[in-house]
Every structure is written in C-alpha cells, then in structure tokens.
C-alpha cells in the first residue's frame, strides 16, 4: 500500500521500499486503483465517506498475502479502525483479515522478516522521531530503533522528547497552523540540538511537516523516511 502522501509527494520512498523488499527476496505487487486509507476523512469525522474508502481498500488487497505500509498512521487506520467502520458482517470479517495481514514497514522488516542489519544509504549521524500512531497506536518504538542502531555506516543518536508530537495531525496542521508550527518548532529545535544530519521517521505525515519546517528555516538537517536510509541488498538471482 503506497498511501496518498507516498504516491503523490514521495514516490521515491515507494520505489526504495520495492527495491529493499525485493533485495530481501520478497515478491512485491501493487494492486492498481489505490487512493488513500481514509484516515483524513475518519479523523475529521466524515465516517460514512471513510467507510466507503475503507471498503474499496479492503477489496483491493483481498488477495495479498501480506500488506506493507510505509506510514504508521495509515497502518493503524487499517489495523484498528477498518473493522469498526464496517457494518456488514462479511465486510467486517474481510476487514479483520486485512488488519491481521497489514504491517508498518519497520515492523514488517524486523518482526515479520527478522531482518535488522542493513547498510546505511546515507551515512552520517541519524536520530529518530517516534510517530504518534506508530508509537502509541501500534505500540512500536523498538523496530525502527533496532534497524537504526544496527545500521552500518551511520551512527544513531536518541532524540530527546522523541515521543512528542511533531504537530502535524493531518488537517490540524492547517486548521490551527500557528499552534501546529509552534509544536513543530520545538521538535526541530530538539532535532538540531542532537547534531544529527537527518531525522528519520516512519510516517509520511510527520516527514511532510518536519521537512517543510526544516527547509523553510534553511536547516542543513534532513528529514528522511526509514526506507531512504536502508540500502537495498543485491537482488538474489
């Protein structure tokens, strides 16, 4: 599942994930007709529309063995909210099946494939921002850190307050832009204080927010998706 932000803003992240997974011997398919998981609609209270989007998505991935999602928030939507949105029992069963087979990328690599040793594609000093949905929704803080700690060619440094929100929050970022920015400023000050060359996250929303802020302030620090720092292994022939 590429997700809407991944599709239109960060297609190179999707490409990197495809190469990464193939390098690990995974057959990657991409069901056509994907749009968005529906989280923006759901979070803003438009649940009928969110349910319709969810029903479509469940259908698209009916035949997938495992579904890998590059954003913690979208994975959370599929895993935690899809079943509850379905009123029809058959739909609900399908939603629950999909929920069980859906994995956020870092979780898929570490918990599903048992792979945690990669070469760094970027080098330098890296820090990690916990995305709220991945951390408090999917209760995952260890998998991404395991990958970053073991990354050869990069150093990992903890980010103080890494569990604090970056201020994105979907439509929150434009409904209350001043508050969202104030939260972001605090986050970016912490990031810069670590001396890291890049802050890594597992959610396109946080990346859009942090990248937007970093580039506006002309910072030398980059915000990267996890997939951008893991170098793919040579494709086994």
């Amino acid at each position, binding site marked *: 599942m590429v997700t809407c932000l991944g599709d239109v803003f960060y*297609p190179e992240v999707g490409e990197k994930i495809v190469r990464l997974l193939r390098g690990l011997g995974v057959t990657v398919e*991409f069901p056509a007709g994907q749009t968005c998981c529906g989280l923006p609609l759901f979070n803003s209270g438009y649940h009928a529309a969110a349910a319709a989007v969810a029903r479509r998505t469940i259908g698209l991935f009916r035949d997938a063995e495992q579904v890998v999602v590059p954003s913690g928030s979208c994975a959370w939507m599929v895993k935690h909210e899809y079943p509850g949105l379905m009123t029809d029992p058959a739909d609900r069963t399908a939603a629950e099946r999909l929920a069980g087979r859906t994995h956020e990328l870092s979780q898929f690599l570490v918990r599903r494939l048992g792979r945690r040793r990669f070469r760094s594609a970027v080098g330098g000093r890296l820090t990690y921002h916990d995305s709220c949905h991945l951390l408090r929704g999917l209760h995952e803080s260890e998998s991404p850190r395991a990958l970053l700690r073991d990354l050869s060619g990069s150093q990992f440094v903890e980010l103080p307050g890494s569990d604090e929100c970056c201020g994105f929050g*979907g439509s929150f*970022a434009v409904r209350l832009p001043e508050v969202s920015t104030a939260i972001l400023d605090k986050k970016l000050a912490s990031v810069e204080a670590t001396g890291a060359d890049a802050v890594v996250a597992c959610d396109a929303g946080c990346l859009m927010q942090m990248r937007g802020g970093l580039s506006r302030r002309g910072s030398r620090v980059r915000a990267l998706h996890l997939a951008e720092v893991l170098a793919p292994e040579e494709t086994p022939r």
Partner: protein
Amino acid sequence: MSESEPATPFRERAGQALRDSFLQEALTIATTKFIGLRREAFDEFPEGEALRDRAREIKEATLQRLDHYLDRLIDNVERRGGHVHYATTSEEARGIVLDIARRTGARTAVKSKSMATEEIHLNDALEAAGVTPIETDLGEYIIQLAHERPSHIIAPAIHKTKGQVAELFARELKRETVADPEVLTRIAREELREKFLQADLGISGANFGVADTGTIVLVTNEGNGRMVTSLPRVHVAVMGVEKVIPSMTDLAVFLAILAKSATGQKLSVYTSLVDGPRRGGELEGPEEFHLVLLDNGRIRQIAGPLREALSCLRCGACLNVCPVYRQIGGHAYGYTYPGPIGILLTAMLNGTESVKDLAHASSLCGACLEACPVRIDIPRMLIELRKDVSERRIAPWSERVVFGALGRLLQHPALYRVAARLARLVQRPFVRGDVIRRVPLVFSDWTRTRDLPPIAARTFQERWAELERAGRR
C-alpha cells in the same frame, strides 16, 4: 445554564496565547516539570499499571449502578447528620448554595479549590448575593486577586510566572514582595489566616464520595481544605455525581494513582476525610454539613458517547502532556475545563455546538490517553465529537465542501488520478526548485511557516509499470 461562548474565535485566542511570552515561559517550565515528576513516580511504582486498570474497572462498575451508589451515599451522609441536595443544572446548584448562605446569615465564605464550583460559576453568584467568597488554595487565591479564572485543573495559576505573582501581590495587597515562591506563600498564608477564622461558610468540592461510609474525600497539598471544612460553622461540598465510589477499599486504589498522575507525589500532603457535622463530644468540625450533588449534563452521558469521560479524576495529567495545551495554556480554550479532557467536559456540559472548533484542537497524538490514570480514550471521543459536528452539518460550509470533494476523490481512483495531474499543472507557477514556498487558498495556512512538497513529476502509480518490469528481469 450552559456557559457562554467566548467572544473571539478559538484560533484567535490560541494565537494570542502563542504571542504571550510570560505564558510561554510559565507553561514550558510547569508542564515539563509535571511530566518528569509523573514519569518518575510511576517508574518507581511497578504496580501502578495494574492499579490504573483496577481504578478504571471500579469507575465503570460504579457507573453501571450509579443510582444505587448515590442512594447509599445519600443515606449514609444523612445518617451522620448531613444534608444532601440534588442539582440538575448549575443554576439549581447555585440556588442551593445561596439558600444555605442566606439561611445561615453568611457574610464571607472560604473556599478550597474546586472545579465543580468553577463549573457552576459560584463565586459570581455569591458576590451578587452579598457573600464574599475567598479562595484559599494558593493558586486560586492568586487568580482571584487577578480577577481571572483557573487555566489548569490542578494548577489554576500555572499561566503566571513568579515575577507576575510578586507584582500582583504588591499591587493588590500593598505588600512588599520579591519573586520568591516561599516569600509569596508566606504572605498569602498571613492574609488568609484571619479570613479562615472570620468565615461563616466553608465551601469545597470533593475528589471522592464514599458510598459505604458517607465520607467526602478531599485531596490537597496546602492544608487549606482541612481548614475550610472544619473551621466555619457551615460546610458545603459541591460534588459531581460521578465522583461517588463504593468503598474505602476502592478509595485506596484511587489514592495510589491520583497524586502520582497529578503532581508526581506518592500521596498528596493532605487527604481529608469529611464525615459530616460535628457530633457530641467532638472538638472540631462544622455545625452543619451540606452535600450538593451536581448532575449538569453528566447523567445523560451515562448512556451517551462521552460516557468514558465520567471516569475522569481531574488530575490534569492529560493537560501537561498535551502538545496543544502546552503551547496555548488553559484560557485559550475559553471554558471552565481546559485541555483534552476539558474539550470533552465542555461538550458534556454545554453540548457539541460549543466545541465545534475545540474538537479540532488536538493533533490526536494520543499522549493524553497514555497519561490518563484511568485510561480514558480521549482521542477517540474527540473523533466522535468531530463526527457529531460533521453529521449535524454545523461545520463551516467551506470545510464541508472540501471534505465532501475529498470523499468523492478517494472513492474514485480515476478522479484521484485526474486530480493529481491537475494539481501538478496548477502548482507550476509556485514550485521553486524542489519545494513550494507559497500557495494561495487552502494551503496558504501551511506555507506561511512551512514549505510544501510539490506533486511529484511522476506519482508512484505512474512509475509502477516500469518498476514491475524491472522486477521481472
């Protein structure tokens, strides 16, 4: 009576708060300290997690039979010589307290900190009736002198720096001061001591009402609660109906987690158990004790979407960890109860309409749920409120248009693809290098402070055919 709507829109109020450098300083210091203390307290208390679950179970079980436990509480308070009153609305609650004041000829009332009396706007009513209310909690005393309202559930003057408090004391009390909390506390103490002795009426809230024994429990740190409930002739406690708990055994569970969540203390300095009026042979205590049970929208929610919020202990932990509260403080919310739980309580007391903007004052980061001692799923209920706003069509029309269009777009992939292509054309004049620095309309609120990524020259979907071929080779 519901609370009146603030005069300025929420976004504006939040903006003012962000520009207030004193507020920013005070908030950062206080919330950071609270967060650290809370974390330490629970780190040292491994049984805390299980007790949090237990506390929630007790609250749930009590809500299941709230009428039964309230009956028991009423019987036991009356058996010990107290009087119990029931108020359906805040207006009724004010009326009850004013009646008691009138009947007992009260001229001044000392108060210990109580959000329930804030909720019913009791102080204004007392003043209008010629009774002078005197807040005796240090934080409440400060904001009463400043003619303000609490900006935090347990730290009402959290928005003030010590320098501001020193200036306030100098101006209002005509005393020489320095910006030293110890000196300031001593001054307040001296000022208040006399008031305690003169007051005819003591007014408190209640952290818990124990049904089995008819005991009202107050959790405080300054000892003022004890004086309010024992020195004046008459004591009135105003308690939300959801504060009843079955037994003293249950109380122990709550006391073990309440102060840790609120201030990081193992226990608060004082835990006062009030057992009604003074009885024969007792040396202290009031001649009369009144318990005012307050509904004010709570009972309706037992079967409503905000039911979980009835488990709230009013510890304030969710405020301290909320990234929004930490930036804007409590006053910007505009109602009695601030912060994430405050949005739910405001909706409970004043209806969904009152929070149609506030329901969006959250990035849904989930820190509140994690900090809540009884694990109230605040983010979920905020989403429920947003749903109510959208389904009742009380959101601004522009929002409804945008989300209506988004809904259609995401259900029809062909439309979605066309929109991406269209956006790519429209964005052209705005792209500078690999970012967009300024766009008009909807996203201008984004680009005022942040760059926006442009729609990629080729989306992932447009790249897939090639990627797929590469994979087959």
